[in-house]
Structures are given as structure tokens and as C-alpha cells.
């Protein structure tokens, strides 16, 4: 399932004891899945950063150099993926498509994490009416089937670019992370070293930033890692439906949206972007999986 919206049935977000920091890297290095998926993910990020370096491999390389005479033609020498409906080299387009996916993934993940950490920290540490307020707002968002909510809101926005799409993904994505953060903070805030810090007169901000945050951050970081693949998949689904990025943008979702109409005559239009999208999402999901297992295998039950 390429959406991280399905919340796991267990409501307990009690994190296990934090893994020893030093043990994380050797633990990861032993896993073949981690090696493969991190190489793939790095490759995709490299494609997003410098598409020029990859696009010219087969002689093409300019995504805006298109010739309508070649519209929808199958793969030919120098054009391993064939041509899209506009007669552009599909390989070049697919390479350039990595950028918007990665950009949205980065923006969304950063935004979700920031919101979730701040609100989860406040709700879990101060309890009382702050917690009540934040938790009720989270409940409202859990009351949405996420994809439908995102469609409705995006439909009514007049601009669809990387920023607005990310904003909507953040809007529906933060509660799941904030819930985990809150549970984790609740568990941490009861610890004796927190009481000790209070006892020696540390200020509240200092306690929050120096003691609570570092010790409750683990599970949220793991869940965020697991979510990256889901974010990319959600973006492509929204774009595919026509409420995400729009045509002059080069993105896999846009390519798939266009390919829908032609998939009986030019199936390659659907196949190649799909392969790239799938490999990307899968490698991020496997990466998140490996991180979680290395951090604390018992989290597998909850996440």
C-alpha cells in the first residue's frame, strides 16, 4: 500500500528503550536491504539535484526539445524509452521528473516533522488544556480519509505548485507523527532525570530542548523515515488524479496522468514513469524499514 495514511491498529505508542546511538550504524551496515535501498535512494536524489548529468547518456538531454512528428513513438536508438505525446524524449523527461518528487518529499517531510515535534512536545509536556486543544485538532484530522480531504482542498486552490502540494500533504500528514511524538514525550517527561533537572532549577525551555526532545525524538524520526515513500506516492497519486502539479511541470505524476488516455496505443508512456516511481517509493520504504529495525525492532509491531 503506497500510502502511509492507514494507522496501525495498536494505539500504544510506548517507545521501547532508546537504542544505543553507537549501535545504529554497524547494525545498519549488516543489512543488504539497507545497502541496496540507500544506493537507489541516493541515485534518485542525485538525479533530482543534477538531472543534466543523467539525461544526456543516450544523446538526448534537453527536456524542452521536442518534435511533434515523434509523438508517442516506441523506443528507438538513442531514445531508450521512446517519445511522449509531445514528441519529447521520454527518458530525459523521466530523469527530470525525479526533481519534483524529491523536492516535495523534502519539503513535506521537513514541514511535517517540525509541526509534529513542536505540537507533540507541547501536548506531551504541558498536558492540561494545551494537550486537550492539540489532541482535539489531531482528532479532526484523523476523521478525514486523507486522500479525499487532500483532493477536496487542492481542487479549490488556484495554484498547484510544489509548495501548495507540499502544504496540503503537511496539513494531513502531521497528526500521525504528532501522536507518536506526544506519546513518546509523555513517557520521557516522567523520567527521574527530568525531575532532577527541574530540581536544580533548569528553565522549562532548557528542559524541553536539552532533555525531553533528544530523548523522545527516536520513534518520530523512525516513523518519518517510514513515511517518506508514502509522501512521494501520495504526491504522484494526487498529480495523477489531476489536483497535484500541472502540465508545464515535469513530474512522474503528470506523465502518468497524460499516459492514461494513450495506454492502449503507447503503453510505454505508462510503463517507464511507473518503474521509476515504484523503484523510488520502494527504496525509500525499504530504507525506512531498515532504519526502524536497526533502531528498535520492537517498533515493527506499532509502525
Amino acid at each position, binding site marked *: 500500500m503506497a500510502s502511509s495514511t492507514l494507522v496501525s491498529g495498536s494505539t500504544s505508542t510506548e517507545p521501547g528503550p532508546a537504542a544505543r546511538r553507537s549501535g545504529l550504524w554497524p547494525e545498519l551496515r549488516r543489512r543488504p536491504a539497507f545497502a541496496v535501498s540507500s544506493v537507489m535512494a541516493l541515485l534518485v536524489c542525485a538525479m533530482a539535484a543534477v538531472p543534466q548529468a543523467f539525461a544526456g547518456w543516450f544523446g538526448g538531454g534537453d527536456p524542452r526539445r521536442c518534435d511533434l512528428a515523434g509523438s508517442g513513438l516506441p523506443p528507438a536508438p538513442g531514445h531508450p524509452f521512446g517519445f511522449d505525446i509531445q514528441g519529447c524524449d521520454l527518458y530525459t523527461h523521466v530523469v527530470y521528473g525525479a526533481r519534483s518528487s524529491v523536492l516535495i518529499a523534502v519539503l513535506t517531510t521537513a514541514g511535517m516533522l517540525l509541526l509534529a515535534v513542536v505540537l507533540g512536545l507541547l501536548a506531551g509536556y504541558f498536558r492540561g488544556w494545551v494537550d486537550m486543544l492539540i489532541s482535539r485538532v489531531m*482528532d479532526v484530522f484523523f476523521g478525514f*480519509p486523507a486522500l479525499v480531504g487532500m*483532493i*477536496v482542498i487542492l481542487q479549490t486552490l488556484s495554484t498547484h505548485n510544489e509548495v501548495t502540494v507540499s502544504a496540503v500533504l503537511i496539513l494531513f500528514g502531521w497528526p500521525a507523527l504528532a501522536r507518536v511524538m506526544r506519546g513518546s514525550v509523555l513517557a520521557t517527561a516522567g523520567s527521574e532525570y527530568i525531575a532532577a533537572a527541574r530540581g536544580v532549577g533548569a528553565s522549562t525551555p532548557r528542559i524541553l530542548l536539552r532533555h525531553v526532545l533528544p530523548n523522545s525524538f527516536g520513534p518520530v524520526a523512525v516513523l518519518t523515515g517510514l513515511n517518506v515513500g508514502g509522501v512521494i506516492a501520495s504526491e*504522484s497519486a494526487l498529480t*495523477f488524479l489531476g489536483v497535484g502539479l500541472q502540465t508545464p511541470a515535469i513530474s512522474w505524476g503528470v506523465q*502518468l496522468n497524460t499516459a492514461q488516455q494513450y*495506454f492502449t496505443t503507447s503503453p510505454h508512456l505508462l510503463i517507464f514513469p511507473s518503474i521509476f516511481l515504484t523503484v523510488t517509493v520502494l527504496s525509500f520504504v525499504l530504507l525506512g524499514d531498515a532504519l526502524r529495525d536497526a533502531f528498535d525492532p520492537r517498533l515493527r509491531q506499532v509502525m
Partner: protein
Amino acid sequence: MGRYALRRLFMAVPVLLGTTFIIYLAVYALPGDPIQALAGPNRVLTPSVEQALREQHNLDEPLLVQYGLYLAGLLTGDMGMSLTGRPVSEVVAAGWPVTFQLGVTAWLFMAAIGVLLGTFAGMRRGKLADAAVLGGTTVIMGVPFFVVAYVAQIVLGVNLGWLPVSGTEAGWPLAYVLPGLVLALYGLPQVARLTRTSVLDNLGADHVGTATAKGLTRRAVMVRHVLRNSLIPVVSLLGVSLGYLLSGTVLIEGIFNLPGLGYQIFTAIPQHDGPVVVGVGTLLVLVFLLVNLMVDLLYGILDPRIRLDLD
């Protein structure tokens, strides 16, 4: 039980108000002209259509009054007019049986396959079958949903011709098998994994050891003592998943041409038929809330611990 049900109902009210208010704000209160937003960015509306839409959405009233009227309309089944002039409630009435059938079919697949795989993996912990289930569910999570739908449609439907891939002509269940299976993949990994974890927990429990020591056959132990207890958390997840399947219907009905609620959204988007997208979308959100509420109430009946947790 009565107290629990009442409390749960009261808890649902703010969520209901919150969700509809967010949708309402997004649609009608964002800067810019909501009428233009509903119609789409580049559409020119005739003055009469625009005036009709304005009156229909009470845009001359203050915001809270507008929202109140909109909510009253929702609850009385008045969801406005599609830009094609058809009432949205008609669109909904035509579509919901299809979505219901699809949802139930997918849910049954998800429950059956998920529980089977999970039990199988749990009983053979650490063996090849277990690794295959764990690996397989990870892969399912990593493959974008609509890609699976297209692959299934092309390979199983078009190339092999095993199952109908488009429309509802073949009727239930045949026309719903393939879309139902693909939609089931949406929640399958979670169901299978939770079942596996749950079976593992119970296999190690004391009462299972006792039952084995009493000399019960392996089969009796599994069915009567392990599975029965293992399924408690799974049942709750299955309930919650029913709501989440609704999200997937937009993609699945669109790809497989099933004329349900999701299909209405799918086809209304490129036409910029805002009232349909928003109206049907809001309805799906309400259904989602109701389903979750019913699941919670049922679950409160099944498991008294849940009721006490609230207090």
C-alpha cells in the same frame, strides 16, 4: 455501555464539526472568489450561472451563517448543484451502491487474505514463509497503488482475459473481483503484520502452554486458544480499515470505470466540476466518520476494557 456510547457520540460531534468546517473554509473562505474556484481557474461563467451559484451557496450572508446553512443543507441531503445542472444528491444516490459493493468486496478480501497470511507467518516464525510474508507486505507498501491497478488491468484483464476490467456489466461479484483485490492491497500489509504479531504474542502466552500440556491437539490449541485471542486487535484494525478503503475508491473506481462515488470525483476533477468534488468528497468524509463511530461502538460491546479506558 450506555454511558460509553453517549460519550463516544459526544466525542464525534466536534470532529464532525471540525472536518466540515475545514472543508468549508478551504472552499468558501479562502481569499479569492469561491465561485471561480469551484468552477476552475480558466472558466468563464455566464452572469446568470454565477448569480445562481452565489445564491445557492448563500455567499451574501456572514461566514458563520453561511457555514450553518451549508451544514443544514448537508444534513438534509441538499448538497448543491453540479455545474452540469444535476443535483449532487442525485449523483450520490446513483453512485453509492457501487462504492458500497466495491468497499465490501475489498474489505472481505483484505480480511481473509490478511488474516490467513498473518497466521501462516506467525506459526512459522523465522522460516521462509514468514520472511516471504514480511518481505511481500513491505513490497506492497512500496508500490504505488494506481500502478498496481494498471498492471493488474493490463496483465490479468487485457492480456489474459481472465476477469472483467471495466464497468459493472458483469455484475457482482465478477465485475468487482479485480478492483476489489487491488483495493484490498491498500490495507493488506497492516492486517497481515498485526495478525502475525498477535499470533506470536499469543503462542507464547501461559494459557496456550497449559492447553498444550493438557494434551489438546495442536489444531484445537491453535483454533480455540491462539486464533480466538489473536483476532481481537485485528478486528479493530479491520474496522478502521473499512473507512480507509474509501480513500482508495477514488483511484480504483476511476481506473476500472466503476460508476461509484469515487468515480464521480475522478471524472469531476478534469472537468473542474467543483460542487461535485466537494460535495461527494464531504459525503465520503462523513461516511468515514460514521463507519469509525460504529466500529468503536461495536468494539465497546465486544471488549469491555475499551469502555473503561475512556473514563
